[in-house]
């Protein structure tokens, strides 16, 4: 797995069967899954045993978010970068390396799943809460033409949890996150615009 394309799946070690099994057990104890199991009593036993696993597999798709995208989205909310939107002061031929000292990045999103039987939904939607915390010792953002072109980071440490109905399904302890030396954003991320979705980001930066 290329470090730049590493997603929350690798972040939470979702590929580990033992980790996933623990999460399945915890997910089976939630009210939502018990409701789904109750609705599957008339279904074959194979389906009853597979419902929880199916939800976990769908959750894996919801965790397909790159760590670098989380960083970019977080940096893009930094107010200090908005000064580079002034083209008169920072023409397109100028390159600015914006250095960030030690800082933290927080990300939280809520994927929702729906279990279907014979193309018909059964039970309520199951909502998860994914919380990711990254601590960067330093980062240098290269900005040109009001775009974040690439970034270079120091050591990164990450911690995260996945919850469902308040119950922790998956937990990652604080440990180093492997990122490439230079994170390239292709043609650059426009400063001030939301990543991927195009909607403005809410910033919690001070």
């Amino acid at each position: 797995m290329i470090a730049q394309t590493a997603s929350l799946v690798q972040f939470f070690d979702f590929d580990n069967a033992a980790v996933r099994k623990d999460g399945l057990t915890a997910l089976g104890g939630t009210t939502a899954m018990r409701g789904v199991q109750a609705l599957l009593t008339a279904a074959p036993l194979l389906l009853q045993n597979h419902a929880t696993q199916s939800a976990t597999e769908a959750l894996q798709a919801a965790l397909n978010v790159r760590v670098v995208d989380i960083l970019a989205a977080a940096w893009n909310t930094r107010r200090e970068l908005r000064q580079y939107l002034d083209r008169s002061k920072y023409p397109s031929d100028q390159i600015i390396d914006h250095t960030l000292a030690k800082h933290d990045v927080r990300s939280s999103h809520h994927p929702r799943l729906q279990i279907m039987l014979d193309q018909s939904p059964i039970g309520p939607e199951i909502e998860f809460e994914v919380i990711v915390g990254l601590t960067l010792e330093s980062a240098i953002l290269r900005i040109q033409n009001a775009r974040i072109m690439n970034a270079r980071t120091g050591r990164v440490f990450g911690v995260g949890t996945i919850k469902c109905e308040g119950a922790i399904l998956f937990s990652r302890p604080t440990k180093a996150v492997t990122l490439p030396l230079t994170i390239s954003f292709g043609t650059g991320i426009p400063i001030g615009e939301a990543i991927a979705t195009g909607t403005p980001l809410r910033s919690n930066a001070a």
Partner: protein
Amino acid sequence: MTVTRLWSRPVLAIVAFVGLGLPTAIACGGGGGGGLNAHEAALLTDFLILAIKPEGDDKDYKLVEVGNAKVDAGLLGVVINTLPLDFLGLGSDERAYDETAEVAQCRAACSRNSQCRDFTYVRPNASRPVGVCHLRTLAAPASFGVMSPVGDAGERSERPVREAPPIATTPRTNGDKIVFDDGETAGSVRYGDNEIRTTPLTLKFLAPVSQVKVRIRAGEDASTRSWAQLEAFDAKGNLVERTGTWISAGEFTFGHGIAVSSGGADRIATVKLEGRDGTVLRLDGIEYLRTLIAAAPQPAPVAAPERVPLPPRVPAVVAEHFPMPPRATPTAPPTPITLPPVEIAAPPIETLPVLEAAASPLPQPAATTPTPAVTPPTIAPLPRKRQLPAWLAAGAVLFVFGGAGVYWRSHRKRTLNRLTTRLVSNGLDRRTVGVGASSAPDIGLRFVVRSAATIGAPGTHIEFVPAGAYA
């Protein structure tokens, strides 16, 4: 004489004529009265007299030959018991019970019944004062009735005798062994109360016989039925035949016969009679027959010899030039079909046996030259029965199990496809992301690229401009 008191002289004469002439005719007749001797014939006469309806007796009892109609033995017994024996001058106390006579009557009745094969005489007892004769067919008793007379000469029909008249013999007895040293074609011996013979018994025939019949009954102390076994052995001790029958206890049945036969030739030299589990049986009589045909030498083992199929019939000329290989016995190893050539030399003419013209349709050989050797053709062995190859069987088994596994997997997959989970939202649209304050102020380092930097380009110049400074 008491008879003269009641019968007139003419009637007495008629009765005497019938009474004397009838047994004489029976004794001399070809049909034989069932093999009756003179003594028994005389006894028949006596019984016949008793059976005739006396004059003045209002009771009418019908004389019915046993076997032609059902006879109520109890009723007939009562009728006979009401015979005015005193009136006839033959009181019951004057006429003593003679078992031999009654047995003779029974035998005579059996001989006159075409379906009768054997008879059993039941002695009278306290509940039944008359003797009962059971005539038996092959399957079941043919009839049941009281001792019946022979019947009148006009009504009776002569019937052939079914068994040879036995000749009374006097065997030597030694403990439990009875030895017959005669050489007659038939013989018999009877045992009564004066000479009780009980099992186990061994009958020894110095001259072998072809058939032996013993008449036995249950012992007096027997409470249940017993199995009587009869075994016949030849002179060498080989078993010829073994048979047996159940003997009922509780009644004195006479003449319950068991027979063994050697099938034609005189082979039976020893007969053993015994009851199962040591049950004591009483022997009433022995009968035997000889055909005077010497038995062929028998093989030593008791088990039936293996049957060897006869060789096919071929003409003598063919057999002479094309000899058949020896036929193998069932237990003998297979004889090889291919035989070495056999040279057959024709014997000289003068040594050939003289054959009659009618018995020898084949012409006599004219030449005396030796015939050429004939080599029997070799026969290819039959092809082995084809069997299913092991690889094919294994492949079929694997195919079955593999097919079952494929079906199971597809079934499992189809079942699992019914349950899906749809990602309604990945939550990124409402994602909350932020960056915290840095531990130190940010530093911006601005530099201007005047020209594209190429390798070795001398014009590349990089200026470092602190943040906020105008370059």
